[in-house]
């Protein structure tokens, strides 16, 4: 396992959507400054797992969660937890680039403003820093006041990453962040993720196995709600221990 210190631990996590047992006894560690990839066939619970990490699943009415998720050793499902703070610490980027229909600047400043930063020059600073962090500054610095919807798909996705960075998270969750993008934009985002892991702990769901091999330090393979195998990426993709993993990654499994 490509380890470091543990950032997030899930212990015996079970999740039910009504009667649908969507996550089955998932125990995993995410490591600081590593990229962890989640792969698996459609509907196997990858997104669900990702969402349990910043409690976005709270919004689903029928959901029931058992087990614990520790962030820096604090249980995020403790009733005392302020989900606002939690989500500030654990940012999320989605499959479809989803910038708000506002200017580029306002998109990035959205988070900081929510968290009470009003000062103009401070905001300017954050916006610039975040856009640079998302490798987008050079492309948009001269049109910060233009609508974010005018950006290309790849730029929009990087904007969403910048927006997540602006609240200074510690963990970045990404649910298939490049599946809506063309190959060139995808490569750009992959390069970016590699840079991001210097500062953040990154978890990414991807359908593109090559992508997992390219960027992830560790990879977990999910199958109908279970973690079949969790190993350093190279190991998982070269010498998987489980037959099902091998079948899946070699495309022999549907």
């Amino acid at each position, binding site marked *: 396992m490509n380890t470091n210190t543990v950032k997030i631990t899930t212990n015996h996590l079970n999740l039910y959507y009504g009667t649908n047992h969507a996550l089955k006894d998932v125990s995993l560690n995410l490591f600081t400054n590593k990229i962890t990839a989640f792969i698996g066939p459609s509907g196997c619970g990858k997104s669900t797992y990702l969402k349990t990490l910043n409690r976005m699943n709270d919004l689903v009415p029928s959901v029931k969660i058992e087990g614990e998720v520790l962030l820096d050793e604090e249980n995020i499902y403790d009733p005392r937890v302020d989900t606002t703070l939690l989500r500030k610490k654990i940012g999320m980027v989605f499959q479809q680039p*989803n910038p*708000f*229909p506002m200017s580029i600047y306002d998109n990035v400043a*959205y988070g900081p403003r929510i968290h009470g930063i009003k000062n103009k020059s401070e905001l300017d600073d954050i916006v610039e820093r975040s856009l640079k962090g998302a490798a987008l500054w050079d492309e948009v610095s001269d049109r910060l006041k233009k609508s974010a919807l005018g950006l290309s798909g790849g730029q929009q996705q990087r904007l969403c990453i910048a*927006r997540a960075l602006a609240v200074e998270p510690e963990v970045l969750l990404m649910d298939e962040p490049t599946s809506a993008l063309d190959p060139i934009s995808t490569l750009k985002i992959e390069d970016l993720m590699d840079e991001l892991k210097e500062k953040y702990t990154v978890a990414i769901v991807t359908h593109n196995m090559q992508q997992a091999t390219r960027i992830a330090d560790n990879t977990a393979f999910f199958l109908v709600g279970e973690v079949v195998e969790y190993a350093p990426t190279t190991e998982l993709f070269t010498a998987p221990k489980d037959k099902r993993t091998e079948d899946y990654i070699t495309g022999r499994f549907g």
Partner: protein
Amino acid sequence: MRPKSYSIFGGHGSKSGVEHAAEVIFTVCGFFAVLAVASITLYMIISGTPALFKVGILDILFGTIWMPAAATPSFGILYVILTSIIGTALAILIGVPIGVMTAVFLAEVAPERLTNIVRPAVELLAGIPSVIYGLLGILILNPLMYKIELKIFAGSTTHQFTGGANLISAVLVLALMILPTVINISESALRAVPQHLRSASLALGATKIQTIFSAVLPAAKSGIITAIVLGTGRAIGEAMAISLVSGSSVNMPLPFNSVRFLTTAIVSEMSYSAGLHKQVLFTIGLVLFAFIMLINITLNNLLKKGEESHDK
């Protein structure tokens, strides 16, 4: 190479008769709306402009005395115009915030079960004839207003008592009447805001309320503006409901004055008028028409601009 089964050269090589007929018919249908608007505009101008010149543009538009049937008739409609503007504006000012907030409630806050009960009710109310609102205005609002009027103007010698048929009543009826429209359209605009924007906002650590006001409402802006446009249209164009509750006298649009709107001016006198009086009523129609066009065009441009700035 496999033997050629058939050539792509068709016998006629051009479209069939049915195709052509279909295209022609649809084109004619398409231009029907243009024809209709053109002829309405034409008729309004033909019927409305003569009086404008006979009486004098300034005298009509900026005159304050409306005595169409007098021996020396006077056709000033300034108060009528002002009433329409102020009355509509007030109705919008009252109706829109309440309507939008209600829409927010229904789309974002309310439990689904409550929404499922309230939304059909709102839809129903959007569909009921406006005269019913007028009916309620007369029966409930006017007596109430009169009581207030009596209190406020007790002992006043200058105030002409209206029996509650005043600007406020009309504004309230209008505000109430546009409520379902505003709620319906705003709500669907809010529902049309993609879920992922909400997720995005929540994932940045925004609370639900922050999400609604900082992300969802701005994203639904154009839909809400549409709601306002349609609401404004309905308010300014409404005639029957308020002709009975506003008192229908031509007066300065002060809260407790009995007032006449552009629409009510036409409705109430059209039947009885003749000659120049009638022509002036058409002029009022023309003014109303111009107003509507103006509002439509400016709001449309505003909307389009808003959209464009997002598109590129």
